């Protein structure tokens, strides 16, 4: 159907509503050019087209369903579950660590030995450790293992080798392979036959109190008169977690008293009265110094 002055209104309305084909639209536009008096009517019809307002539906969030609405409680429960899991793991590690300490120290003839500064502690046999406490400073002119053997053979030396000498001589090769911090260890300084080889008491100053805090923590170099306990693990590269030592006084606080009882119950009796009052209990990466 062609557009004319009798039916143009229907064409104009469909032109405004965009319901005409491209061909019909072109026909309408040509008709308006040929009849300019009708152009204003087409423009007025164009003005009746509504322009969308920026109206937003209120409370649109209430319309969402499914996972989106359950997101908040899920996060809440996940946080609680993570916290409970962390507590369980921590408790298990603590209990398991104490159990390992007790088992390790109940092994006959076995104890942990701290190695020289910067080295990991090594497990050695008590039978191979007959060393009496001696001054163990970095003394100049210290005998080599071979020289020590010669002195022993000549009767000038009571013991064939010091522990340090044995280490140098390869006696503890097996111990070196397993000499790593297991994270949980207990060290008892009571008894000369169980004294770690790297820890020696200055015989010239037996009454001097050992330092309670290692230099690994306070980063102060050990003095010449400090006992070996203060020098243990005093390497700059030592992990602060490994070297951290908590000091508890068993006489003054309940935590120390409890740990002291635990140490007494799990350790063989000390034979050296000088060191009877000092015990170490390692819990995790922390070494507790007991009195």
């Amino acid at each position, binding site marked *: 159907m062609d557009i004319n002055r009798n039916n143009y*209104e*229907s064409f104009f*309305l469909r032109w*405004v*509503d965009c*319901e005409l084909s491209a061909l019909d639209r072109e026909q309408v536009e040509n008709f308006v050019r040929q009849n300019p008096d009708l152009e204003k*009517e087409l423009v*007025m*019809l164009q*003005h*009746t*087209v*509504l*322009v*969308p*307002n920026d*109206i*937003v*539906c*209120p*409370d*649109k969030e*209430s*319309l*969402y*369903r*499914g*996972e*989106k609405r359950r997101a908040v409680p899920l996060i809440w429960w996940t946080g609680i579950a993570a916290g409970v899991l962390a507590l369980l793991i921590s408790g298990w590690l603590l209990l398991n660590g104490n159990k390992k300490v007790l088992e390790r120290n109940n092994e006959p003839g076995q104890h942990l030995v701290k190695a020289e500064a910067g080295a990991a502690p090594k497990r050695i046999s008590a039978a191979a450790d007959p060393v009496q406490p001696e001054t163990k400073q970095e003394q100049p002119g210290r005998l080599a293992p071979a020289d020590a053997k010669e002195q022993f053979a000549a009767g000038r030396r009571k013991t064939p080798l010091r522990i340090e000498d044995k280490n140098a001589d390869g006696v503890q090769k097996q111990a070196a392979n397993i000499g790593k911090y297991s994270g949980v260890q207990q060290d008892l300084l009571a008894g000369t036959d169980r004294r770690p080889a790297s820890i020696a008491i200055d015989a010239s100053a037996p009454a001097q109190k050992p330092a309670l805090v290692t230099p690994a923590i306070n980063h102060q170099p050990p003095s010449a008169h400090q006992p070996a306990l203060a020098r243990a693990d005093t390497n700059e590269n030592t992990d602060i977690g490994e070297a951290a030592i908590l000091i508890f006084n068993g006489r003054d606080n309940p935590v120390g008293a409890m740990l002291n009882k635990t140490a007494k119950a799990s350790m063989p009796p000390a034979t050296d009265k000088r060191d009877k009052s000092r015990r170490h209990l390692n819990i995790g990466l922390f070494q507790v110094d007991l009195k």
Partner: protein
Amino acid sequence: MTADEYNDCVKQYADGLYRFMLKTTRQAEDAHDLVQSAFEKLWERRKEVNAATAKSYLFTIAYHKMIDQTRKERRILFADKLPETRATERGPTPGLKQVLEQALERLNERQRSLVMLKDYEGYSYEEISVITGLSLAQVRVNLHRARIQLKEYLVSIEYVL
């Protein structure tokens, strides 16, 4: 339709559906209730409704609920003719958009709905016919009448000015 597709429908169509209901009912609370009712219906029937036809489904549900509601409450008067009120009696002359809004309010409910479905949502005559349940001829005739009434209102305002 999945839950995600349903939520996409909320994101895309909730504002348009609310605008359509607000302009039709002229009551914000009623409009919101109708939108909520339509989306609840969509959620219940989500397994039967395709995501591609969800918009048409929403407008159909909302439109028919609105018709039922207004018939019960008789809030909206079905007037076939524009009131005889002259523009000069309504205070200062607003802009074209405001004049058009005033003219829209003077249409009957069916015509107003058709104009909004056409202009706001861009539906074709066929789609409007599906949504409203009217025949294609009814949609066309009612829309054309509505346009002519709006145009006459605009011309009368222009004449006064």
